[in-house]
């Protein structure tokens, strides 16, 4: 037994958690798996990767049906950031999820976990000519003239097949009535969907919420560099409000629930002037 298998076995046995989310190999595929006390012997098949699913999203599904369930999960850094956001937004109770941290850091000493950030896929020549390279930095993305930048984003958005995969897979998209499906906000019945509004509505919602896990970009059949887009949005939130998404336990500045705004804006000087 590996030390993580041993630890999960003990947690389940002692009742520290009722259910533990991790992975196991099924027909050669690393798939998420829920380990329980009733089937405790399965813990010796537990693995920590290499594929990455939003285990925290499954945790919210358990919690909405069993509000008092004690849930455990293996957590990479991105899982942990998502858990922080989900707690801030009351999708999970504080302390409801206990994590076993797993390391995705690349090293010659171990095979690193699969992540588009650690192992970026090089952009093809059409994307480089007409679209946005998902691997560029925000600073690089800002160097092109405004009109060209817009054209390049519109080229990317025009490929959208409106599968809603970006929203469905996102650990921090949990709204019961999603704006992206509201016929008054986004026109229905044609492809691509209304662009750029479809993508910008989602981008605005990700401000102060997106934890930069990249799952949306991995799931996008049209290879739209969504992660880059939401990074930009969050950079603005950080510059303007000093808010670091996913790191703390305070609500983002745009929370409209409650009596007063949750944060005061910083001077506007921080916005890049053009």
């Amino acid at each position, binding site marked *: 037994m590996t030390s993580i298998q041993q630890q999960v076995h003990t947690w389940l046995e002692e009742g520290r958690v*009722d*259910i533990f*989310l991790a992975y196991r190999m*099924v*027909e*050669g*595929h*690393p*798939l*998420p*798996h*829920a380990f*329980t006390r009733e089937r405790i012997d399965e813990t010796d098949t537990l693995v920590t990767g290499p*594929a*990455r*699913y939003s285990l925290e999203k*499954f945790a919210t*599904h*358990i919690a909405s*049906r*069993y509000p008092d*369930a004690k849930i455990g999960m293996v957590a990479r850094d991105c899982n942990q950031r998502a858990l922080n956001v989900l707690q801030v937004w009351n999708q999970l109770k504080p302390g409801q999820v206990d994590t076993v941290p797993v390391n995705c850091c690349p090293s010659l000493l171990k095979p690193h976990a*699969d992540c588009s950030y650690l192992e970026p896929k090089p952009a093809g020549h059409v994307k480089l000519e007409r679209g946005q390279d998902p691997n560029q930095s925000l600073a690089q993305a800002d160097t092109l003239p405004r009109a060209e930048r817009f054209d390049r984003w519109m080229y990317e958005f025009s490929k959208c*097949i*409106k*599968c*809603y*995969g970006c929203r*469905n*897979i996102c650990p921090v998209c949990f709204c019961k009535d999603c704006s992206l499906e509201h016929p008054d906000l986004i026109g229905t019945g044609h492809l691509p969907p209304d662009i750029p509004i479809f993508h910008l509505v989602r981008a605005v919602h990700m401000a102060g919420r997106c934890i930069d896990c990249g799952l949306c970009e*991995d*799931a*996008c*059949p049209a290879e739209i560099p969504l992660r880059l887009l939401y990074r930009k949005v969050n950079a603005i939130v950080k510059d303007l409000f000093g808010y670091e998404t996913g790191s703390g336990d305070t609500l983002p500045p745009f929370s409209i629930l409650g009596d007063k705004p949750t944060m005061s804006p910083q001077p506007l000087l921080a916005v890049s002037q053009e």
Partner: protein
Amino acid sequence: MDLKFVPSICSYCGTGCGVLFEVLDGELVGTLPMKTHPVNHGKLCIKGWNLHEHVNSPLRLKHPLVKTFGRFTKVDWDKAIGVATDRLKAVIAAHGPDSVGILVSAKMTNEENYLAQKFARAVIGTNNVDHCARL
């Protein structure tokens, strides 16, 4: 509290994307793309993402139905196959085997498609075989 993840293949088109069903207490609550599947590499189209909805749909056909006097009635398989055989025989006797066509599907197995065309050619006696991708 019972959460299971069940790997499967999307049944909506011939691409055959790998999906993972999220099953909570025996109820199919969600569909996810299988990240390591060689066909779709963690991506799905809108149909695949919503597979659980058609499984749970109240409109789903779960039993053979026979239409008599304009109304569908629930019957068992033997009865349904019996009715189909009688009607096919009657149509063939009156209008010949080429008055029958067999439609197969991109989402059936190769073997099922083979059987269906064999049935059309050897049993019914027609070459009228087509499939869903041309509908």
